[in-house]
């Protein structure tokens, strides 16, 4: 198998001017390392503000990084200029699917033209465009394609629009796709359809996918691996079954516990809630960034930043108390 994208210690800092006191540094990404292989999906989960969307955009070089390296199939693209990214076809090979299927399609353009646009920009031939657009529409099950090419976005449901977005992302033959909350604005009854579709297209077109979501339950069905982010860092990452069945980081454990399931017994109990809200990334806590909300934090957590260590096969955790939690001598919930 082939590695499609690799991030090495990627940092993305913003200089935020804060009045008379000069500027402050906002650490949106603070040293993230991960890789995604062909026909693999990596889910990045976390609360809003954890840096997961920034991660997606930085990995595509839609945002410049502050430091670290990004490798696309082994080639370092971290410092390439826009012209070079385009000339060497990296722009074609990396695509994004956005969250909002309503605002991301031009309401005055026909579906066929929306999906064809990237091909026209890249100067493809007329016949080739038609063929590629039809194939992409077939891949996303907007069939028969000739019935959909002349329609306008408002004639489609939210789920169908999101499939148009996916088709548009596919036409240039990408090898790496970032899907940023692709189903969070779609009705529950259509979500699974979109996610399973994305997975089968990933396999048939042999792509690597970064799936950004706040909903861990959906990650389970589409992602082979999961990374849990907190304040710009990876708190825990590993194979999906391993992380979901034996979560080790207190944040992951509590995040999983806060996911509701439809059970009539729920109303007679209180949900386990993580206290407080994520601290401001402008002023992150010292040591382990989760220590201010962690039920098992000790003195060491306040002062020393934990390293991401492999505690189980291909399952990494950044927590000083990971071993005790694994042994069961410390309980989070």
């Amino acid at each position, binding site marked *: 198998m082939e590695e499609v994208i690799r991030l090495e210690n990627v940092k993305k800092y913003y200089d935020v001017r804060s009045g008379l006191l000069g500027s402050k540094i906002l650490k949106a990404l603070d040293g993230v390392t991960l890789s995604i292989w062909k026909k693999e999906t990596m889910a990045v989960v976390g*609360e*809003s503000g954890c840096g997961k969307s920034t991660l997606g955009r930085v990995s595509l070089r839609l945002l410049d990084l502050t430091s670290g390296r990004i490798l696309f199939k082994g080639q370092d693209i971290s410092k390439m200029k826009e012209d070079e990214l385009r000339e060497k076809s990296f722009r074609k090979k990396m695509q994004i699917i956005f969250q909002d299927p309503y605002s991301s399609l031009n309401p005055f353009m026909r579906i066929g033209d929306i999906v064809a646009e990237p091909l026209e920009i890249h100067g493809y031939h007329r016949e080739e465009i038609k063929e590629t657009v039809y194939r992409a529409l077939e891949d996303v099950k907007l069939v028969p394609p000739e019935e959909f090419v002349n329609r306008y976005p408002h004639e489609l*449901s*939210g*789920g*169908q629009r999101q499939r148009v977005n996916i088709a548009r992302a596919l036409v240039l033959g990408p090898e790496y796709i970032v899907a940023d909350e692709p189903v969070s604005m779609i*009705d*529950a*009854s*259509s*979500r*699974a*359809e979109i*996610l*399973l579709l994305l997975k089968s297209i990933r396999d048939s077109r042999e792509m690597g996918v970064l799936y950004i979501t*706040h*909903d*861990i*339950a*959906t990650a*389970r*069905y589409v992602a082979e691996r999961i990374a849990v982010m907190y304040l710009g860092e990876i708190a825990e990452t590993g194979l999906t079954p391993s992380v*979901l069945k034996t979560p080790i980081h207190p944040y992951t454990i*509590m*995040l*999983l516990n*806060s*996911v*509701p*399931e*439809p*059970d*009539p017994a*729920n*109303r007679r109990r*209180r*949900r*386990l*809630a*993580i206290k407080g*809200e994520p601290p401001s990334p402008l002023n992150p806590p010292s040591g382990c960034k989760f220590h201010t909300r962690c039920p098992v934090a000790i003195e060491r957590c306040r002062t020393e930043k934990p390293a991401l260590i492999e505690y189980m096969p291909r399952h990494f955790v950044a927590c000083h108390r990971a071993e005790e939690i694994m042994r069961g001598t410390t309980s989070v919930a």
Partner: protein
Amino acid sequence: MNEALVVEGLRVYYRTERGAVRAVDDVSFGLARGESLAIVGESGSGKSTLGLTLIRALPTNASIISGHVYIDGEDTLSLNLADFRRRYSWRVIAMVFQGAMNSLNPVLKVGEQIAEPLIYNGGASREEARRRAMEMIELVGLPREFYYRYPHELSGGMRQRIVIAMSLVMNPRILILDEPTSALDVTIQAQIINLVKDLIERFSLSVIFITHDVSLASDIADRIMVMYGGQVVELGSAERVLGEAPKHPYTEKLLASIPRLRGETIPEFIPGRPPDLASPPPGCRFHPRCPYVFDRCMREEPPLFKVGEGHVARCWLHGE
């Protein structure tokens, strides 16, 4: 009288260029005192329109075609709007509107926004109103000093707490919550749900909880009412609708579509799309998407059949 609220034969249509959109089409149900009822449905099911009708806050292109909404036996739809507002709004029935946390007045301190109705509708002095608003702020789990904060100084979760405080400041008996946590992270959602449960107990509220999220509904609801295409398709206790087998194919498929953290089931999806309520399909409105469809479903609209104790379902599978 054990019912806090009774809805009978309610029809609410929107006037559009394409004709009347039948958003709420012959809906009847009761809400017992101290009960929590979840209204579950996807976008376009009519659940939010129903909520807006109950507090008489419909947009101007909506008309109440027929039906009654009784609160303590009085038909509130027959009152003129001014009377309804003076006698019922906020003091008997209040609503946490969808997205309200993003519609707070940006130039007014949040405490003043909570205190406002006490002064203008409750006849309280400024000092009394401020004291009461501070109490409410404390009740929803924030420091009293937050009275002096502006909305932009608060996080989403804090603003949602403020909106909940606003809805309860006039001591209503009935509270409608329309997707109160849909814009919040799951960790903050858990905090807000726990708060809502505390407040329901503390004030013995009768609650209508409108949501698209069945899991969330199960956190609050004694009974669950499933809406599809402007109609009630299933209504019963949470135990029956969620626990034992659901009786309407739509409920069944909706439950099967939820991704679960535990268990081995793969989520299913419902093919097709919700009906166009300007021209709904003949017969059962779910028939074009239903896996169990047969002849009668395409011709005749099913009534609500009794399928168990206090449990009804609008499906011909239960006819005869």
